[in-house]
Structures are given as structure tokens and as C-alpha cells.
């Protein structure tokens, strides 16, 4: 077990009160596993990603524990987290396009960064070059400034930097959403190759685009309104989802070949609940066609099949 997260709670401080963006999630990622994390905007997926590496000013650790390769990860303490960052946990952020200092040559920045983490840049330079080749960049990008690179190039460069120290866990946050389909594919496949080359042990790919996950992820975790809905191997999530939300979500996605005239798809009526004071019980209740009295109680996230967990009374059975 590479990563274990249990009952993690992280809230957002706002004037209106705490937004329970992450309200008790428990899951694990195995070695070599690429786990896709999907859900609608506001479901807490990015909060989950961020909280594993750095809580920003507005985020508040409330409870739960994170365990990486058997070691406790002190996500609540910014300073104690430092040794873990970059070496153990690393991130390719949403904002990869602007993640590099515009006024520093990329190479200089990387060297200053690594030196500041107590490494000799000379010693890792070779590996750095190798990886730059691997992602199909020219080695002299290191002598250039970020604005001299195209969007796709920046994206790839940041991926190389983030994984330079072979972290055990890599968090990739919406990294394909800004890109064109063709580049999208290249970037996604690069992620996989990083795993295959052993640059990263396991990976958490956060995106709103499930079809991307189908292409690259081993397992998919679906979040809804700050809680986990379903986790299963990719194939299962796409073909045999159990949670009503997952089912409706997957069936609402158009794909090449499906046409309005032949097969009219349908979305999910309604919208997610407010996370300021979320409803008790199942949070999908209001939008769920199968909702029944039991749903007023919170459904546990239980394993209903091997590697397949669901939080739904209909699936786990009212007596679960």
C-alpha cells in the first residue's frame, strides 16, 4: 500500500462559514497504481489533491490521517511537510502554464530549487537531460525563459521538474483540461510512461474528464459533494458502475458514434448541494431516482466487490 488516506477532513474558511469541501474520505492507492479522481466542479477533488501536499491559507485541516509508504504525513503542519514535498509527494499543478518564474532561465530555476533542497544540481543534471529528451523537449530549454516555450512545452517541462526526485506519489491536477486533443493525448501518455519508467511510484490524476481517465488510469475514484461515491478498476467504473451517480454520469457522456438523432443522452437533473451546511445522509439523495427512506442516513463507503467500493444504500443494502 503506497498511499492510505483515512477519514480526511479539510474545510475552506469563508465569511459565510466553513465549506466542507473534503468531508471524511478514506481510500488508498497501491504501488504502481494510477488512480483517476473525477467529479463535478466543487466536489472537493482539487481540495483533496492540494491537501496532500500543501494547504493554502484558506484551507483548514479538520481531521483524518494520511499515510505514505508506512510513514505518517503531517499535512496539518506546513513546516513538517517540507521534507515530504518534492521528494515523497509532488504535484503537477493546474496552473502549470504559469508555474515557472518568468524572469529566470528554466535551468537556473531548477538548479536553485534543487540546491535549496540540499541536492547538487551537477549530480542530477544528467538525469534531468535524459528526462527532457524523454518528453521530447530540446535540452537547451534549460537555457530559455518560460515565455519562450509553447503551452505544451511548459506543461511537459513542469512534469519533468515535479518528478525529478522520483516522488512516491504524484498529484496531477487538471493538467490536460487546458490542452488541445492532440497534445492532451501526448501529455496523458507521458504520465503513464513516467509511471512505467518508475519516476513516480503511484499517481493521482485529478480531472473532470472521465474519458481521459479511461485511457490512462488503472482505477477511478468518483467524488460527489465532498464525499466518495465509488471507487473501482477503470473498466468496472465505465462498464459496470454501481453507484447511481456514477451510472448517470457515465451514461450522460457523448462519444464519437453516439448521435442525438439516434440516441438522445440525458444528464442528471438538479445540482450538487451546498457544502456550507450539507444535507445529512446521502448527499446525492436529492438528485437520485432511487432515493428511499434509508438515504436519510449517511451511506458507508464499503467494498461491495474486490477493489470495488460504493457509498450507496441501494448497493450495500439497507442492513449493511
Amino acid at each position, binding site marked *: 500500500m503506497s498511499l492510505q488516506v483515512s477519514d480526511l477532513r479539510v474545510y475552506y474558511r469563508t465569511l459565510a462559514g466553513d465549506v466542507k469541501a473534503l468531508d471524511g474520505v478514506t481510500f488508498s492507492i497501491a504501488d504502481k497504481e494510477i488512480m483517476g479522481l473525477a467529479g463535478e466542479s466543487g466536489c472537493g477533488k482539487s481540495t483533496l489533491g492540494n491537501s496532500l501536499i500543501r494547504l493554502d491559507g484558506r484551507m483548514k485541516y479538520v481531521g483524518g490521517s494520511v499515510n505514505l509508504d508506512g510513514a505518517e504525513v503531517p499535512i496539518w503542519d506546513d513546516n513538517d511537510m517540507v521534507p515530504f514535498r518534492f521528494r515523497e509527494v509532488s504535484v503537477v499543478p493546474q496552473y502549470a502554464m504559469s508555474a515557472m518564474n518568468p524572469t529566470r532561465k528554466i535551468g537556473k530555476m531548477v538548479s536553485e530549487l534543487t540546491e535549496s533542497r540540499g541536492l547538487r544540481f551537477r549530480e542530477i543534471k544528467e538525469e534531468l537531460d535524459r528526462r527532457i529528451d524523454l518528453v521530447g523537449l530540446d535540452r537547451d530549454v534549460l537555457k530559455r525563459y518560460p515565455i519562450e516555450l509553447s503551452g505544451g512545452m511548459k506543461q511537459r517541462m513542469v512534469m519533468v521538474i515535479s518528478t525529478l526526485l522520483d516522488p512516491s506519489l504524484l498529484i496531477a491536477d487538471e493538467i490536460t483540461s487546458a490542452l488541445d486533443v492532440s497534445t492532451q493525448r501526448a501529455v496523458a501518455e507521458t504520465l503513464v510512461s513516467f509511471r512505467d519508467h518508475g519516476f513516480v511510484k503511484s499517481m493521482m490524476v485529478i480531472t473532470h474528464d472521465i474519458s481521459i481517465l479511461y485511457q490512462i488510469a488503472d482505477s477511478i475514484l468518483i467524488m460527489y459533494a465532498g464525499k466518495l461515491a465509488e471507487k473501482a478498476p477503470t473498466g468496472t467504473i465505465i462498464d459496470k458502475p454501481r453507484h447511481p451517480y456514477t451510472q448517470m454520469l457515465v451514461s450522460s457522456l457523448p462519444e*464519437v458514434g453516439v448521435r442525438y438523432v439516434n440516441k438522445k443522452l440525458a444528464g442528471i437533473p438538479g445540482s450538487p448541494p451546498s457544502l456550507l451546511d450539507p444535507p445529512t445522509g446521502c448527499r446525492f439523495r436529492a438528485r437520485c431516482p432511487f432515493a428511499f427512506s434509508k438515504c436519510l442516513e449517511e451511506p458507508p463507503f464499503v467494498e461491495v466487490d474486490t477493489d470495488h467500493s460504493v457509498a450507496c444504500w441501494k448497493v450495500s443494502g439497507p442492513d449493511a
Partner: protein
Amino acid sequence: MLSLNKVSKTYKIGTFGGQDLIAVRDVSFDISPGEVVSLIGESGSGKTTVGKMVLKLISISSGSITLDGADVASIRGSAVKPYYRQVQGVFQDPFSSYNPIFKADRVFEMIRSEYFAGMARSEWSDKIDAVLRAVTLDPGQVLNKYPHQLSGGQLQRLLVARALLLDIKVLVADEIISMLDASTRIDVLNLLADLKSRGLGILFITHDLSLGNYISEKTVILRRGEVVEMGATEKVFGRPTHPYTRLLLSSVPQLHKKWATIEAELAAPIGGGKGCLFHDAYPLAGRNPQPGSDEPTLVKIEDDHYVGCFDLDSEKVARVA
């Protein structure tokens, strides 16, 4: 009917208009009433530019756009109002489509003040109710709210409703669902398709082939400002011929087919040995018309299916069709 005829857009770049930048080159297609035309391309393909030219938000450099035969470019000054009565648009970002400091239904008020100034309040609110019903919105839920109090889906529906206030013939929908959540986007897409029954012509601009394929009758694939392939949707997707079309198809993430599989399928001749005879000559990211070089003309390879590709001369095409 709205028709584009060899429409081009060239930007003068550099402080004193040093060099030219060709954003759109010789694009021609029609939008008939009750028809959805999807304009598919990646960023920089000029798809949005085309949309904006139709909406007269950007001037045309050469070529012409006509609405029911009347030239659009020549419309000036106050004459644009009647035009906008017939041609409207909805844009990608629901949140930037609303002035954040005003209530969302102000978009209706603007229409009222510019087009229905005389109309009685009661009559107006009936009109509003009607259009809101048409886009399946509950007036109580959406009126009198600020943009950030509404969901992306609701905002986009409001904009469609806004367009319906006018008796429009053509609606330009530029990436209108790309920023919506998966669970709600399809409904907006369906709504758009339903508008066809009103005899509305829709220009559906998107980067997502599956969406274009889902909703449209006609597909135009744009690359670097040029049409590389166009025709009836089922033909373009059923028998993708241009290498670039194939590249797109092979990279669009699908739900039940892995990339590798799709690639294999595309590599194999489509439709029982037919299809692009020259695909072998190209790697999927194959050689494509470069701006500047002499352009391949669009060639008809079958009814309602045109391809712009160098080695696609008529004689070979004859063998295909």
C-alpha cells in the same frame, strides 16, 4: 440561409502592421434553417474567429457572408440592430458572459431597452416566461439573481433564452458547454438540438469531436484557418479522409475504446477497402497544408463530403466514389 463564401481574416501584427497573420483562409459553407453545422478545430484553428465574423464582432478581410442573400459586411451603424435581431450568439464562458456586478437577467433588460422599449411590462414578462420555459428554466429560480448565484448550466440556458427573445434565424454557439459539468452539459446540448425544430440554424463551434458528431447534421473541420474536410456529419465521421481528421479522431479520448485501438482502426482502410487511398502515405500526424504553401482545393470525394488534401486529385477520387 446564412452562407459564408471564401471568407478570410488577416490580422496586421506588429505595431505598425508589419506582417500579416492569416487567421482564417477561404472558408465557405452554408447554414440552412433547422440545421446544426458543427465547426470543429483546435485552438488557433480560427473557429472562434469565424463565429465572431458571422456575429460582426470582427470584420471580414476578404470573401463575403450573406444572410438570405443580403451581404452582412456592408451592414453599418444602426443597421446592425435588425441584423442582430436575426443572428445571435452564445459564448464559451458562462461566467464572463455576464457583467459580474449586475443581476443575470440584465441580459434580458438590454434586449428590452434596445428592441422592445415600447412593450408593456406584463407583455414583456410573459415573453420572458415563454422563453425561459423553452429553455426549461424556472423563472422563480433564475430571475433576480446574480451570476455567481446560478450554475453554469443555468447561465448558458439564460443566454439561449435571451437569444430567443428576438426572432432569430441563426444562433452561433461557441463552445457553449465546454465549461459546464458533465452531468449538466448534455442537457444544454439537447436543448440546442431541440431548437432546430423552431427552424433555427445553428453554428456549433467546438473542439470536441464527439459533441459535434452528437448534435450536428453537417461538420466542418478547420485547421490553421483552413477547412480540411467537411460534409454530412455521418460521412465525415464515418469515413474520415483527411490525415488531420484522422489525427483528431485518434486522439479524442473515448469511453469504450482505448487510443491504441482507435489508431489501429483508423489505420485500417475504412468501409471495406474504401476510404482514403493515401492514408498509408501519411503517418497520422501526416504532412498537411501549411499556410503559405499553395493550398489544396476542397475536392468532392462523395456526395456531401469534401476533402482538402494534396494528393487527392479528381481522377483518384473518381476511383473512390
